[in-house]
């Protein structure tokens, strides 16, 4: 690793520190940003766009679900096959790349941190084994804690403190980062081939998804958690679901976060912004959702925008994947996880010739463009659900260039003109706003900024992306896409990992995890019940459940004290 | 002249075979897998009684094993525990699927005076 690095003459976009495209030098020593350096290796950025390393708030990159996707799609695997090089291991896959390709391709886009947003607690070891094998990227994972029997029982009895003790134990046991919610109640119902809407009773548990979301938000805020609850709501992908989405957001209004951050992060909201009553009259309700976000401060979102083409959909939302498979008749994998969650996977082709897909394509971008404050929005494709992450540069070029959007719309199904807003929106993102939705917002919302991610202030990690484009070229959509796909330089922890779009070094990333600190008496009371549950209903023993330290070889621990 | 019976040959796991997985060069393994289970009627047909030797012949080879009576076997179905003796006569052709046919092979079984080869002798055959 280079000890000292000086990035000279770059035009820097560092939103967390309010730096809006200033020509500015960046100094790095021993992997951290510093005021000045003595005899550094110098990179002349020559007026190119310079940003902090990218931070992805939500991409399925590791774990049993992702690997089942790889395993059952050799036809996707062969698409991305590349031989090993002096630096890189073998690569394969397009929508479900192998772990090595995942690290290399993100790094080539200038990203240095990715959040794996759906870790089944019982299979957490698997998620961590894959994270170990993803080069370069720092990472973290969110355990699924909403369909768990223990959660639902505490929600039913209203013991928020004991629920907090349970999530504290779960996050610790899984070396996780926060609370993930996916189709609350619906995934448990799916174990009986059923589903739940927001206010339906979960079969046999006599609680509603609404109660689960509210209780988990309250329990989460019992600690100084870096991140809010991370919510994939009910009825994903159903026409008319935008109402459910807003009702879900409303549930947690008034809950007080311990610091300046939302109390709920709504993920891949494109899939939750649907109007109409069936596919026939399907339409965009992105505007309604955007209006809600614009007039409320307690919710942040990521867009989950569509990339046209073939992809692999995967989620803990089992019933949703089943209905998708019912539409396509293609291969379908389901994997329900005892007492906790589930998994559904099926391939899907988004076609610009299909009205519904076209409207979906519009919705993701509409959300980004209609929500006024970019600090409330993160750019995602819910990789690989709405499309693979290597499609980000396409999205960036769309958001920055109305002409490109209009040209694309012309090529697509006419439904985009009468059942979506996109063609009527003139807004164009600038580099500063792009820097917000691809790094700063995610770092802030995840509570990672104070841990050195997503900005270039003194003391921050030496994670820097230098793109081969100048501010003057902001109208060249093609060049923007090219520049954001293959960074001129990506620097990770002060080490040059990408040069001229090629991976030149592949160091190990770190895994961030949170340790919520819970009152011991509470914990003991909760454990009595938990151990009994293991004894009678789990298929593994309590002693073998928690993730051993061996699975987090490069740990970064964040403590979350109990709020008195 | 040859007094054989035509069967579908199956190979598979047994408890004793599993117990000696790490113990294959032993007598226990030999007695756990070097036999062929036949239906009583089939045994009478070839005039063999339990403990006597039979020769199992298929398109792919032949092997001598001890005869055993298998209550569960229907007529025309023979069973040899998975292992080198069974594999001496199964088909290696995977038909483009990567998997040999270990089960349901056409075989002829006859009584024989020939001895059952010990594991090392059996392997030596492949080393010629």
């Amino acid at each position, binding site marked *: 690793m280079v000890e000292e690095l000086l990035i000279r003459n770059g035009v820097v976009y560092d939103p967390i520190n309010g730096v809006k495209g200033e020509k500015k030098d960046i100094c790095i020593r021993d992997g951290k940003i510093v005021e000045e350096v003595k005899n550094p290796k110098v990179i002349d950025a020559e007026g190119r766009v310079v940003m902090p390393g990218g931070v992805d708030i939500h991409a399925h990159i590791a774990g049993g679900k992702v690997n089942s996707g790889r395993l059952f799609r050799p036809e996707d*695997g062969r698409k991305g096959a590349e031989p090993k090089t002096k630096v890189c291991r073998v690569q394969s896959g397009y929508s479900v790349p*192998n772990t090595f390709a995942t690290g290399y391709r993100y790094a080539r886009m200038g990203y240095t941190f990715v959040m794996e947003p759906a870790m089944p607690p019982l*299979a957490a070891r698997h998620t961590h084994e894959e994270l170990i094998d993803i080069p370069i990227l720092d990472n973290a994972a969110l355990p699924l804690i909403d369909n768990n029997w223990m959660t639902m029982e505490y929600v039913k009895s209203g013991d928020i403190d004991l629920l907090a003790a349970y999530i504290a134990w779960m996050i610790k046991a899984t070396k996780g980062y926060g609370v993930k919610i996916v189709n609350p109640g619906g995934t448990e119902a799916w174990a009986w081939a059923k589903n739940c809407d927001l206010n339906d009773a979960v079969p046999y548990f006599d609680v509603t998804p609404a109660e689960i979301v509210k209780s988990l938000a309250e329990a989460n805020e019992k600690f100084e958690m870096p991140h809010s609850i991370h919510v994939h709501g009910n009825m994903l992908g159903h026409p008319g679901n935008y109402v459910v989405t807003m009702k879900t957001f409303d549930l947690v209004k008034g809950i007080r976060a311990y610091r300046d951050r939302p109390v709920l992060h709504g993920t891949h909201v494109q899939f939750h912004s649907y109007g109409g009553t069936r596919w026939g009259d399907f339409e965009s309700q992105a505007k309604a959702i955007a209006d809600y976000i614009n007039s409320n401060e307690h919710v942040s979102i990521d867009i989950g925008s569509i990339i046209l083409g073939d992809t692999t959909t995967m989620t803990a939302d089992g019933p949703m994947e089943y209905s998708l*498979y019912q539409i396509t008749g293609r291969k379908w994998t389901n994997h329900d996880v005892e*007492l906790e969650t589930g998994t559904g996977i099926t391939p899907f082709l988004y076609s610009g010739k299909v009205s519904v897909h076209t409207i979906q394509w519009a919705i993701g971008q509409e959300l980004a463009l209609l929500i006024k404050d970019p600090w409330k929005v993160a750019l995602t494709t819910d990789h690989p659900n709405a499309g693979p992450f290597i499609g980000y540069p396409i999205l960036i070029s769309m958001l920055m260039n109305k002409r490109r959007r209009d040209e694309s719309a012309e090529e697509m199904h006419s439904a985009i003109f009468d059942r979506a807003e996109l063609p009527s929106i003139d807004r164009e993102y600038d580099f500063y706003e792009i820097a917000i939705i691809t790094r700063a917002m995610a770092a802030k919302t995840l509570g990672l900024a104070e841990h050195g991610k997503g900005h270039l202030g003194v003391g921050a990690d030496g994670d820097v992306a230098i793109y081969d484009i100048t501010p003057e070229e902001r109208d060249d959509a093609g060049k923007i896409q090219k520049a954001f796909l293959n960074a001129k330089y990506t620097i990770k922890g002060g080490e040059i990992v990408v040069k001229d779009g090629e991976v030149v070094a592949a160091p190990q990333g770190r895994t961030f995890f949170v340790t919520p600190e819970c009152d011991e008496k509470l914990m003991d009371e909760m454990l009595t019940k938990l151990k009994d549950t293991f004894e009678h209903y789990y298929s*593994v023993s309590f002693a073998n459940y928690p993730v051993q330290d061996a699975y987090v070889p490069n740990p970064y621990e964040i403590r979350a004290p109990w709020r008195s | 002249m040859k007094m054989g019976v035509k069967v579908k040959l199956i190979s*598979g796991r047994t408890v004793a075979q599993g117990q*000696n997985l790490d113990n294959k060069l032993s007598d226990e393994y030999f007695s756990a897998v070097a036999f062929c289970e036949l239906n009583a009627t089939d045994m009478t047909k070839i005039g063999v009684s339990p403990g006597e030797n039979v020769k199992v012949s298929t398109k792919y080879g032949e092997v001598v094993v001890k005869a055993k009576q298998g209550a569960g076997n229907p007529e025309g179905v023979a069973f040899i525990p998975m292992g080198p003796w069974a594999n001496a006569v199964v088909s290696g052709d995977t038909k483009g699927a*990567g998997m040999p046919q270990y089960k349901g092979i056409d075989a002829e079984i006859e009584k024989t005076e020939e001895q059952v080869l010990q*594991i090392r002798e059996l392997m030596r055959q492949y080393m010629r």
Partner: protein
Amino acid sequence: MVQITDVVCPLCGCVCDDIVVEVEDNRVTKVRGACAVGKSKLMGHGRIKSPAIRENGALKDCSYDEAIKKAAEILAAARRPLLYGWSSTVCEAAKVGVELAEEIGAVIDNTASVCHGPSVLAIQDVGLPSCTLGEVKNRASLIIYWGSNPTSAHGNHMKRYSYISKGYFLPGGKKDRKLVVVDVRETKTAKMADKFLRVEPGKDYLVFSALRAILYGYEDVVPDEVGGVSKKDLLEVASMMKEVQFGIIFFGMGVTHSRGRHNNIVNAIQTTRAAHTHTKFNIMPMRGHYNVAGFNQVCTWETGFPFAVDLSLGYPWYNPGETSSTDLLIRRECDAALIIASDPGAHFPGESVKHLAKIPVIQIDPFPNPTTEFADVVIPTAISGIESEGSVYRMDNIPLRVRKLVDTEYMSDEEVMKRILEEVRAIKAKEGE
């Protein structure tokens, strides 16, 4: 005497993790909770005493260093090497194996190739509606074992996870469940069944299609007898499947090994999908070795493909039937092989063993076996799950960490693989100069 609880059993795909083991002067002296087969493994057997290299016909003891160096020389020189086995060792060793395969342009394959490889091919065609074993324990009121015989192959399966176990929604255990067995012979498992269907060898495919037709409502086209099973029985089983709240099919090598191979499994899965239009239905392969699933996981996340991965062209190419071990050997493609934690000498068809016996073979294993008889380099290792720890994946892909119960002088599989990789790289570097 030390008592160790919650021991994870390193034998079959059940990976029972509630075993109690007693250790006295560094030996396992007592085992509670394991099945007969698992107990036998934990109690231990005779070992390979020392590393050895074959010299004019006979194995001659040598040091680890010599054996590892020799192994590396063989592999570095090979034009079509095969790295096979991996199912009775931990994922940590498999990871080094994939790296070695990349380094030397080898084919890497595990025992799934001759076990549930066809199940993987089937999953790649139609997917797998499945669940973890605890779901079966808590919810499954109908259990179907099709071409699988747990009483012989998975001793604790019914007790811990399925027919006999008690679960949240089925507190009565087997009183609350129904058991159906489909097989070509009346096995011990079949004798326990509420309903036993005896199918003619090689006719499973037809039976599945008939069931699907019935489940979709076209029983009118189904003939009176299919593959030895009467239409009456098919209708009965179909209605059992429709009426339960949660059912599961456990299938084994009875279907993967017989005529139809992977397509039998495709059809079993299609049958599950058909049943799923009526109620919750799942299906699961009865994976054999305790970590056969784990290798497939590691190989998939590292190469994109689960087994039979050919790295000879630099990038991964996967095509069982071409890149699978049995084919490579019967076609006499390989010019060297590394065999780890498995015994093709005993478990491959004679035709393939013939070629294996002719080429340089490196064997890495704790125990002597038929493969040792012709191996040219023999490297004994610690027994994973007894003498060394690591990751393994249960038949339902739940990851567990097997323990180290006793100390050993032997190197672990992972250490040996790392040393071989280093040696190979050293040789390559020299060649480079």
